[in-house]
């Protein structure tokens, strides 16, 4: 099978180095002339999972379609109501599917968005790569260590460009914070402390029941062990189930700690120990930590990363600017250097940092850090596909981030500190924890 890159080279996708579209309600980058694109210079896309963030990605790709740079060819969801809505807005060129494997079979599709619940991310990404597709997959990349390793292998084996949806890295103010710190303005950073509000509790538990007629429950569960349907499991509330969403640490942690790993230049490594404590709910279906504190120790260089729910919330310094930009309340990270510290608030689809980082001017010889074209995470992915390069939140980085969140939850579940080998990417000295690095998948939804 030809690799996605070989097919796209023949299709002359994105001859220019920049893809830009007019700004509009979806915040698309600025217009570049249509003549910059060659014939057939369109990325043909399939969208797997079209609720929530999946709907956001679909809306943006439909907007790109108006400039003839993308072609939304397929929409797919296990909920027929969501699927119907997606098909309606995608246009007559799109086909609808329940089973994502029909999407992957199509030879005309170049790339897919995967915005399904977290427990599907790894399996679908691996399958997409094995089917010759580039992939944009939502964060967190994976739910287990085994999954993450499989994702990296599949991407490399099939030369597939993978962007993980930790889009904070593409935000201008995250870039500004990164550049400010990279140029030594804080001194040596030894500690990064992240704060985030607590996960919610399920105060309305209900018994298991038959799934609604529009939902394919077997396909929603996919690789997870079988259990009866419960309305508290989905759609969006999968976030609060340990085996699927993993709570705030796997949700926003995959954003806030993504930025931390990037800024600390630690995408290629991991901690040597992880220790979590927390408070679990006393009732209901949702079983993720309400409050939580996780300490990650890194070596060579030595630094500490802390994830806290709720932690110490830091109010915005510039309320006027924050409100003018519509930045939401609040979670974020403090970067503690031996000379100074810097706060980076939020860090997902929004990023907000201190004025000193925004106004800092690089002098001669200053370090530059990567920035996404037009501060656009999608465009960064398109550019990587065109150039055969790695995007800003590539699969290795995305998996490294996800491993932090997986290990944090695992330490909490086992109620003990875990030792981690960041080179071999495995837990050391704890047989039970080592077995929990994998979760065998329900057949046929296997890696």
């Amino acid at each position, binding site marked *: 099978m030809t690799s996605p890159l070989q097919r796209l080279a023949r299709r002359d996708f994105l001859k220019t180095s920049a893809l830009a579209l007019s700004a509009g309600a979806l915040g698309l980058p600025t217009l570049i002339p249509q003549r910059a694109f060659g014939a057939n210079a369109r990325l043909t896309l399939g969208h797997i999972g079209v609720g929530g963030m999946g709907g956001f990605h679909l809306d943006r790709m439909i907007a790109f379609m108006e400039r003839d740079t993308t072609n939304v060819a397929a929409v797919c969801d296990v909920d027929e109501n969501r699927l119907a809505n997606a098909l309606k807005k995608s246009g007559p060129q799109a086909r609808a599917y329940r089973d994502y494997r029909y999407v992957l079979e199509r030879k005309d599709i170049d790339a897919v968005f995967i915005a399904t619940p977290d427990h599907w991310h790894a399996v679908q990404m691996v399958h997409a790569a094995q089917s010759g597709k580039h992939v944009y997959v939502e964060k967190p990349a994976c739910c287990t260590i085994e999954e993450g390793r499989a994702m990296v292998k599949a991407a490399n084996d099939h030369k597939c460009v993978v962007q993980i949806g930790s889009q904070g890295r593409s935000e201008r103010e995250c870039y500004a914070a990164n550049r400010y710190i990279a140029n030594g303005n804080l001194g040596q950073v030894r500690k990064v402390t992240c704060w985030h509000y607590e996960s919610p509790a399920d105060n309305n538990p209900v018994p298991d029941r038959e799934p609604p007629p529009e939902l*394919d429950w077997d396909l929603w569960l996919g690789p997870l062990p079988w259990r009866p349907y419960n309305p508290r499991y989905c759609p969006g509330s999968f976030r609060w189930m340990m085996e699927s969403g993993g709570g705030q640490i796997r949700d926003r942690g995959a954003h806030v700690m993504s930025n931390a790993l990037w800024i600390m230049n630690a995408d290629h490594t991991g901690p040597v120990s992880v220790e979590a404590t927390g408070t679990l709910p*006393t009732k209901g279906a949702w079983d993720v930590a309400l409050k939580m504190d996780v300490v990650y120790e890194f070596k060579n260089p030595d630094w500490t990363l802390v994830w806290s729910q709720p932690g110490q919330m830091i109010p915005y310094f510039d309320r006027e600017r924050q409100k003018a930009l519509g930045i939401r309340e609040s979670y974020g990270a403090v970067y503690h250097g031996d000379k100074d510290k810097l706060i980076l608030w939020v860090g997902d689809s929004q990023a907000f940092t201190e004025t000193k980082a925004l106004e800092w001017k690089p002098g001669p010889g200053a370090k530059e850090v990567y920035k996404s074209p037009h501060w656009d995470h999608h465009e960064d992915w398109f550019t990587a596909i065109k150039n055969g390069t790695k995007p800003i939140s590539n699969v290795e980085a995305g998996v490294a981030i996800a491993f932090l969140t997986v290990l944090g939850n695992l330490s909490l579940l086992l109620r003990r500190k875990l030792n981690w080998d960041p080179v071999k990417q495995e837990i050391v000295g704890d047989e039970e924890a080592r077995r929990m690095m994998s979760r065998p998948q329900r057949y046929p939804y296997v890696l």
Partner: protein
Amino acid sequence: MKNETTNQDQAMITNEMKTATVMVSAAVIAGVTQAAVGTPSVDELIAAIKSKDDKVRGPAWQSAGACGAPVVQPLAAVMTDPDFEIARSARRAMWVIVRHAGRPGAEAERKAVQAALLPLLKDQPVPVRREVLWMLSEIADADAITPMAGLLTDAELREDARCALTRVPHPQATQALDTAFKTAPEDFKSALAESLRARGVTVAGYPSQKLKPTKETSLRATSPAAKPGP
């Protein structure tokens, strides 16, 4: 006079019992270390798990770890309580016990909990046996493999048994999967082949079905120009 004294004594005894119950519940609720107040007895833990009050149930299951093997089978009986929150609390208590017993340096506790779990693979409702399979997947040694493999022929539980055995890093688990493969019905052979290949065994035939689509949408586009899915 004598009756009055007896009634007063009885009232005092009743009040003392109530006080003792409150003290045990308070200790559980306060999350005081078990080393300080002692691990709850089996009956005390089960009573707390069966409480209608989640402020009693919750701390009870969350601190069940040190209760260990003696409470496993009584908890299994509560896993099918008609009150789904009580059933859920019992299940969660068992998981806390399993993970406590699986900690490094607790080999005797692990073996005891395993021994308590194994009989539950028989004659228990399907949901209980399913959970027990996954619990064993985390702590099982060679002694558990044959009982776990016994469920590879159970239509409702064979997939969970397959997954659980796939997780157990013992050669006997590979052997059990291979033995099952030889006699499995055709509709289960591909899944078993998947497990065997994951463990480095060469399997002839039975290619993976993971990329084969099977589920069609009932959705049909309203626009005449639109093309529906398969």
